[in-house]
């Protein structure tokens, strides 16, 4: 199966390791992975801030970049969630509506793709350690992917998966919110950090790097010893 990787700008530039694990994971699952170089950012920073016209420029670039892709798979519930919103954004736009529908229909978050499209629930991974999982808001509530990451994680051997208290509460990231309302954002991430600490996990796993950077960044600031891991890193671990 041919898969075009949607790396997301954050994993392209800041957390490039996530991309490597995603590629390897997909290849192990039997996919042929390509990387359309013209891809940039999904447009979410501008879209969520109310800059609709500016965000559309990014979105159009993404539609051009993935025009010929069979499947588009990315390591972020939030960014894939944005691609899935394109049809709403371009509804009634004669030039772009069809492409928006097309891209949304073939885009998947990586765990969603593994479970729902490929039908894989056990990737044969082994990971030793005490971990907890933060289900990011956009993954669960915007994209609607709740079960896939859990199913995959439960089948990882050696892992001690501790339930995170009030797991579905937002970590306070919220894109520009973290900058625009940094004080409130700070209070929210302190609370999340507290909940993560309560699990006494050594690793915090998530499907969205932005949230993990937020929580992890707070926890290192508090001097807490925890490592953040994108879910693909765990699933790609032998």
């Amino acid at each position, binding site marked *: 199966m041919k898969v075009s990787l949607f790396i997301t700008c954050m994993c392209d530039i800041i957390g490039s390791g996530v991309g490597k694990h995603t590629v390897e994971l997909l290849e192990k699952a039997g996919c042929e992975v390509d990387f359309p170089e013209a891809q940039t950012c999904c447009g979410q920073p501008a879209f969520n801030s109310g*800059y609709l016209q500016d965000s559309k420029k990014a979105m159009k670039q993404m539609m051009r970049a993935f025009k010929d892709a069979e499947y588009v798979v990315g390591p972020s519930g939030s960014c894939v969630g944005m691609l899935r919103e394109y049809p709403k954004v371009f509804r009634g736009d004669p030039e772009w509506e069809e492409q928006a529908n097309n891209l949304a229909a073939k885009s998947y978050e990586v765990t969603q793709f593994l479970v729902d499209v490929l039908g894989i629930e056990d990737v044969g991974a082994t990971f030793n350690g005490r971990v907890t999982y933060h289900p990011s*808001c956009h993954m669960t509530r915007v994209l609607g992917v709740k079960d896939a990451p859990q199913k995959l994680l439960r089948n990882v051997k050696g892992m001690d998966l501790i339930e995170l208290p009030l797991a579905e509460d937002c970590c306070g990231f919220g894109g520009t919110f973290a900058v625009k309302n940094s004080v409130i954002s700070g209070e929210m991430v302190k609370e999340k950090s507290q909940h993560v600490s309560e699990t006494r996990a050594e690793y915090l796993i998530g499907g969205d790097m932005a949230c993990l950077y937020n929580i992890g960044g707070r926890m290192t600031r508090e001097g807490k010893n925890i490592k953040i891991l994108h879910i693909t890193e765990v699933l790609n671990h032998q």
Partner: protein
Amino acid sequence: MGLQIGDTSFKDRVQEGLKNDFMRQAVSSAQGRLRNGRLSAAEELGDWEDWRTLGEEIRTHTMENLDFYLQQLSEQVENRGGNVFFAETAEEANEYIKNVVKKKNGRKVAKSKSMVTEEIGLNEALEDVGAEVVETDLGEWILQLDEDPPSHIVAPALHKNRQQIQETFENKKGYQKTDKPEELALFAREQLRKEFLSADIGITGCNFAVAESGAVTLVTNEGNARLVTALPDTQITVMGMERIVPTWEELDVLVSLLTRAAVGQKLTSYVTSVTGKRLEEEIDGPDDYHLVIVDNGRSKILGTEFQSALHCIRCAACINVCPVYRHVGGHAYGSIYPGPIGAVLTPLLDGYEDHKELPYASTLCAACTEACPVKIPLHEQLIRHREIIVEKENMAPTGEKVAMKGYANWASNPAAYKMSAKMARMALKPWTKHEKISNGPGPLKGWTDVRDFPAPSKQSFRAWFKERQKGEQT
């Protein structure tokens, strides 16, 4: 008082909220209880998602045929001896109600909790004509004695603790007992019972008016709305024009959703449906009945992308799950409608000028949208508001506008993007220490004030991928 509360800036109100430890603790534990209550009530009902869909359909249908149902409602109420008044503005509503009170020579008005009367500032208006207004909902009475605005649409005094309430009762009403909730409530019962018996005018809000028969339905636990509708001879219902259902069958669905979503109850202690004047030979109920239907900006919302905000049944489920509300509390919103629905509704009813921060007081985590029993896409409406603030009202800060322009150019130009991917690590190098940034420049500062920011990777993903491909080829 009206819709807006206080005149300090959003920033100050947030700070005020964050400093208030009791309030934050109270809100946090209330949210926990209310959220769990809603979830278990939903689970007990079984097919909650079907109920939500039905609720949404009913609300959509009703809004699309609002003229028809309002007409039907007024006819029914008039058939039952009631007077119906459509008030386009808050002033018109207050004027009408003041006239009724004056005509009746009303001295004492007993009110049961109503958000729309808060919205139009009715209490102050009534005091103008010399009528004494007594709020009879326990929470509202506490706030009235303390001259404090509500901070939650279902539990208005959520931000107050028992010591504060004891103090208020002591200072304002000569209360002598302890701060035990039971004793405080008993005192309120005794005090307010006298008020009910001596009130000549009763005013309530309306949870749902049933268009087919003219019944105004009030959903309460304390029983004050029953007293207010049973004892005074003159009765005024004030309702937002959207608080209407076609028939009793739809009432069933919406009441079932409301009580579960609001307080996790299958039904509240009292669901009371009153229709027009009391009938011949009846003793309880009013012999003079008025229904005041308030527009106050609502019809402007009809037919717009925000129409579904009018679907709101005021259950506060969105408020009870909102993590921003949890930390800043209700007063920070500067509106009697706080939380996600408040952030959507307040600018619609009162304009952007005084409320432009509200749509940004959300991480767009969508917990509100998920909790809403009638499926209002609250977080999406917050984005719509932001679009209007940026693109129509032109109220965004210049720096942000410039940054977003830059973003658009960057994200639509793969070469520029690629270059930045290459340069990012170097650009941030001056602030990077041990692979993290703890004291970032410009917009990063807000971030690094409370948490570290990761240093960009040594090699971008796309560079790695290209190398790997080359390696595979050779």
